[in-house]
């Protein structure tokens, strides 16, 4: 084989890979678009009027997750299954965003932590790597941490909207989450950094609860609500 033949042969390999990346990029772009639409729907819960119809917002978001599922379905077909980690960087970011959105919907609906299994089901992907296109565990955790930060914002805005009970419930939830993370031996740098941010969310929410408490607003609600 001459040098020229060798290089022509090599060119074939390189082109194939570039095509795959191009394909992946296109699907991911649509996923990002849909994720942004879901976000727009959910962000309205921060508005004073938004607190009333949380269920209908969750409903809308869940509908948009259908589009997501179609697209994750396409994504799987774009590259050889065993090369997940070769192209991981392409969808890593959007999967974290989608996990955050799924977790947020689930929290708004049931005030509980979405499991990895549930997220996988919402996105119609796998939990186990062996079974196919899956949700990497670190991406799941990153998504959960993004939600924690959104919840600290929700605690603030629910007070503004006159809902004095929610912050306390968020505070308990976030504290539990924090304990959970403390069990992990995180080394991975970006995840670790995100986790360090959780401390600020915890503190912020505690201060909201404090503000309510010192003015006797927390108790008042408790007796009223008793959810």
């Amino acid at each position, binding site marked *: 084989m001459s040098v020229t033949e060798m290089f022509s042969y090599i060119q074939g390999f390189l082109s194939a890979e570039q095509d795959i990346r191009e394909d992946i990029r296109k699907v991911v772009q649509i996923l990002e678009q849909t994720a*942004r639409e879901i976000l727009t729907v959910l962000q309205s819960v921060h508005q004073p009027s938004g607190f009333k119809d949380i269920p209908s917002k969750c409903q809308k978001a869940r509908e948009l997750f259908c589009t997501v599922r179609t697209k994750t379905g396409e994504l799987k077909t774009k590259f050889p299954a065993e090369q997940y980690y070769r192209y991981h960087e392409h969808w890593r970011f959007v999967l974290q965003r989608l996990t955050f959105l799924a977790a947020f919907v689930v929290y708004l609906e049931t005030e509980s932590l979405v499991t990895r299994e549930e997220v996988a089901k919402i996105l119609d992907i796998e939990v186990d790597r062996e079974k196919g296109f899956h949700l990497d565990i670190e991406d799941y955790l990153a998504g959960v941490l993004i939600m924690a930060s959104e919840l600290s914002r929700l605690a603030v805005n629910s007070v503004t909207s006159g809902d004095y009970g929610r912050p306390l419930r968020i505070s308990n939830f976030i504290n539990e989450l924090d304990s959970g993370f403390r069990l992990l031996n995180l080394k991975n740098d970006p995840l670790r950094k995100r986790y360090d941010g959780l401390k600020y969310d915890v503190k912020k929410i505690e201060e909201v609860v404090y503000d309510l408490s010192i003015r006797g607003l927390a108790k008042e609600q408790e007796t009223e609500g008793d959810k």
Partner: protein
Amino acid sequence: AGQKADDCVNSDSPVIGAFKVFQRELDTKHDKHERLVKISRDVTIESKRTIFLLHRVTSVPDFENILNDADVKLDGVRQKIGQIAEELRGEDLHQFHRAFTPGIQEYVEAVSFHHFIRHRKLISLEEINARLVFMKEDQTTKGGGEDVCAGPCVLTFQVTPTDYLLGVADLTGELMRMCISSVGNGDMDTPFELSGFLREIHDGFSYIGNTGPYEVSKKLHTLRQSLGKVEDACYALRVRGSEIPKHMLADVFTSRAAHLETDDGIA
């Protein structure tokens, strides 16, 4: 001075001949670029000053005067933008875009700030562009007669959607400052109004997300921080406000406090 240097250069050479032509073309372009940069700087400075001026509305009783003063200032800025339009006549706007984009963004920031204060609404790209139409009464500068256009000549300047977005993104920083100042001046309503408005802009930007140009994405973080500060301020107002009725009743100085309340403002 150029004359002497030229002596040393073989002027018969076709290469040199060609480069003399290039020199003219490049210099013309650079000069135009340079002029546009300077006008843009003036636009930036005057827009920034207008913004500074507008911030005074939170501390003085009669803000109509300030709005009018600001409008006069902005008229001056628009005249400058007219000069930009003049320079761009017949040119590809995008070729010199880098020269004047900072100024235009700052103008969008100033004019949208002004618009918000007066109308409590986001100014649209069309509204901005509608005020950037310039009439040139006599076209005597070029050609003798009415060769370019019959009657008064109309010159327009089109702000690009990207510049509009970038200006609006910076506007949110000013809105945040205004919100904090309002709280500092005992104004209870403006912060809530600002918070809703800022939230709408924020949601708009997150809808656009990273499909916009890179510079827009870069500003998202600051925008989010500004929104957070405004939301915190509203939260604080609400929490504080919650105490009035109870303590009013519990307090010995009920009447004075009531008096304060009718004043619709504090201190």
